[in-house]
């Protein structure tokens, strides 16, 4: 026990003495959290649209003003020909072209169906789906307003206000309730995830680089000839980084709550408990990397590649559900995925131990496995 404490003390001294490193480790993640959480958004507002109104009637103009007033769209140009809209789309400064065909109003009055062409720039996949559904909403809403006769201009024009009957609800009243993220705030979704990402990067990188450095400097040999055992050595090495990781989490949580107003619906001690286990996995991976490589530089690059793969396949940026089925199975072995899931479940959904039991179990098992492998891999004898 004393040996562990001495070695830990040495590690802590190393970290504290290296002010720049300490600053990098503590400040850079917070800055990144502050800046990058704003970047990671699919939110769509002020979509630039181009209007081609070939009808030029009161009804078509009403539709245009509805699109303009909706808040999701920004009309950048309105021309009577579709060519300029297509050009704008190719250049990339128009995301949707709305074409209201000739006789739109007449057809709406005569047959009850009016057609509108929407060309959406689908270059950005899912955003296109959202833009389309916003547009469809506006069209529906406008049609309903026309039906309920709340547009006096139209009544006046068509001359027959009772044609579509008095204002009334349909046969079905549908209420829609978004759970857990009622304001649909993308940051509430990203911050708990990015937090995990930062903890992973820092934890893995630091522990991988630390032992590689001792190897380079030759001080690892000195440690090897001391009576310390492998298990003790690893505990002493990892303890300071483990604490640092938890400090990181606390800093991130404070920033998340104070700056981004993320909800904390579940139990914070539970989150820390899982984080404590998770950090042993992240640090263990770093340790394992460091036992494979010879220099700090190699350690950095191997860590870089492994962490990039872990992050991109963790569901942090794109949903796990959307991945190809075989990839989804592969990600079961990704500890980052499970902690991202847990962090979001606890913070946003208020999940308790029962709901996170399965990913937690996987984390606990990976922790045991990775530490066992790392201890085995680390040889006290110089090869």
């Amino acid at each position, binding site marked *: 026990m004393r040996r562990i404490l001495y070695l830990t003390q040495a590690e802590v001294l190393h970290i504290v003495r290296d002010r720049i490193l300490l600053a990098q480790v503590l400040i850079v993640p917070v800055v990144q959290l502050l800046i990058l959480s704003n970047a990671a958004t699919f939110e769509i507002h002020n979509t630039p649209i181009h209007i081609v109104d070939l009808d030029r009637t009161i009804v078509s103009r009403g539709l245009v003003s509805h699109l303009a007033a909706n808040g999701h769209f920004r009309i950048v140009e309105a021309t009577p020909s579709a060519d300029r809209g297509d050009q704008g789309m190719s250049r990339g400064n128009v995301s949707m072209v709305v074409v209201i065909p000739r006789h739109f109003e007449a057809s709406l009055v005569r047959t009850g169906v009016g057609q509108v062409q929407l060309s959406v720039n689908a270059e950005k996949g899912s955003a296109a789906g959202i833009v389309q559904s916003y547009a469809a909403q506006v069209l529906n809403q406008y049609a309903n307003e026309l*039906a309920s006769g709340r547009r006096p201009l139209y009544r006046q024009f068509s001359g027959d206000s009772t044609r579509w009957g008095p204002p009334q609800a349909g046969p079905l009243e549908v209420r829609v309730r978004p759970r857990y993220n009622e304001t649909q705030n993308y940051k509430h979704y990203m911050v708990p995830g990015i937090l995990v990402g930062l903890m992973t990067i820092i934890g893995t990188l630091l522990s991988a680089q630390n032992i590689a450095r001792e190897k380079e400097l030759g001080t690892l040999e000195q440690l090897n000839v001391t009576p310390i055992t492998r298990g003790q050595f690893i505990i002493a090495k990892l303890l300071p980084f483990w604490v640092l990781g938890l400090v990181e989490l606390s800093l991130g949580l404070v920033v998340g709550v104070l700056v981004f107003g993320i909800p904390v619906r579940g139990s914070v001690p539970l989150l820390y408990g899982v984080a404590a286990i998770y950090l042993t996995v992240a640090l263990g991976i770093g340790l394992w990397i460091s036992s494979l490589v010879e220099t700090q530089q190699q350690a950095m690059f191997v860590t870089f590649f492994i962490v990039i793969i872990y992050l991109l396949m963790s569901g942090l940026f794109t949903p796990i559900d959307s991945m190809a089925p075989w990839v989804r199975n592969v990600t079961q072995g990704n500890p980052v995925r499970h902690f991202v899931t847990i962090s979001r479940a606890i913070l946003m959904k208020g999940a308790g131990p029962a709901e996170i039991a399965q990913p937690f179990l996987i984390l606990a098992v990976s922790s045991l496995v990775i530490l066992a492998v790392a201890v085995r891999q680390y040889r006290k004898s110089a090869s």
Partner: protein
Amino acid sequence: MTSLRGLIHKEWLHIRRDRRTAAVLVALPVVQVLLFGYAIRTDVDDVRLAVVDPAPDPATIALRNRFASAGVFRNVAVVQRTEELEPLFGSGAAQQAIVFYPGFAQDLGQCVPAKLLIITDATEPNTASLLQSYAQAVVDGYVRSLPTSHARPAAAPRIVPQVRMRFNPTRESSNLFVPGLIAFVLTIISSLMTAISLTREKETGTMEALLVSPLRPWEIIVGKVTPYLAIGFVSVVAVLIEALLVFHVPLRGSVVLLLFEGGLYILVSLAFGILISARTSSQRLAMMGTLLATMLPNVLLSGFIFPVESMPWALQVIAYAIPGRWFVTIARGIMLKGVGLEYLWPQTLFLASIAAVLLTASVGSFNERLE
């Protein structure tokens, strides 16, 4: 000039002698694109649906069948009470729930509107909006299929959108992300390459020898970059072939232009790597800083996953300085839209000027070291 050729020849020998590294440099991007191409997607085509139906009747069954046959919904649970949804949502077993109330079929025939509640797990707002619109479409279809009655006047006007998805009609995720992935993976590989080439000289102490040689700083830079530019170019070609054959990403524009832009982008990334390695005094701090500074920003600010237009303006300004952002736009433009330089010249100009600035700066930093 002969001395420059000599330096290039020397680098080339290094690469040839260490075939394993060279193979890794070419193979790594191919493997990563393959892996991420299947992983980074945002299609929603399998929705885990829970149904709360306390008193099933013909109408609720009919609507439930419509959901089941819509193709995207997979029914994971049918429960009696709303409270039973809680654990399903909490553990993520269900993403969406439709809640019926007793007497659904009766109400539907009467003047009172029948009630239906659609609950969506909105933790990820984008998916949630898509799920909501899917469910809404199913319900709309159901309402339209109901017989006309006083509760549903037949002549209600409808505005029907005819939607045309330009450039990516099926909204296939790989069309969208693979061109972006190419940019992302190439950045990683280039920084790796230059770091290897420059730090090796430093570690073995031969950098000093280079500096006292008659080679001018720009000659050292050119000599260092050229062989790796060639390797980078090989991986661009490999990754493009993979995108076309494995992911069936269309290539509507000019191949020559795309390869040229790819080469330009590699040059930018190499120059960036050289600048960093040239200025490094303490490897540990510099690498830690660079990795921290590039790993997440590269994913987040290049627009490869998240659209740049959605970001706050301050970040959009920062994104101007991220070369990946320009290459992502160019690659998508050429591959998906089939446009040429007439539309892409601003992006190309940006890339070229970033390359010029970085190369000049790295030449400058070599000068400083000489003093």
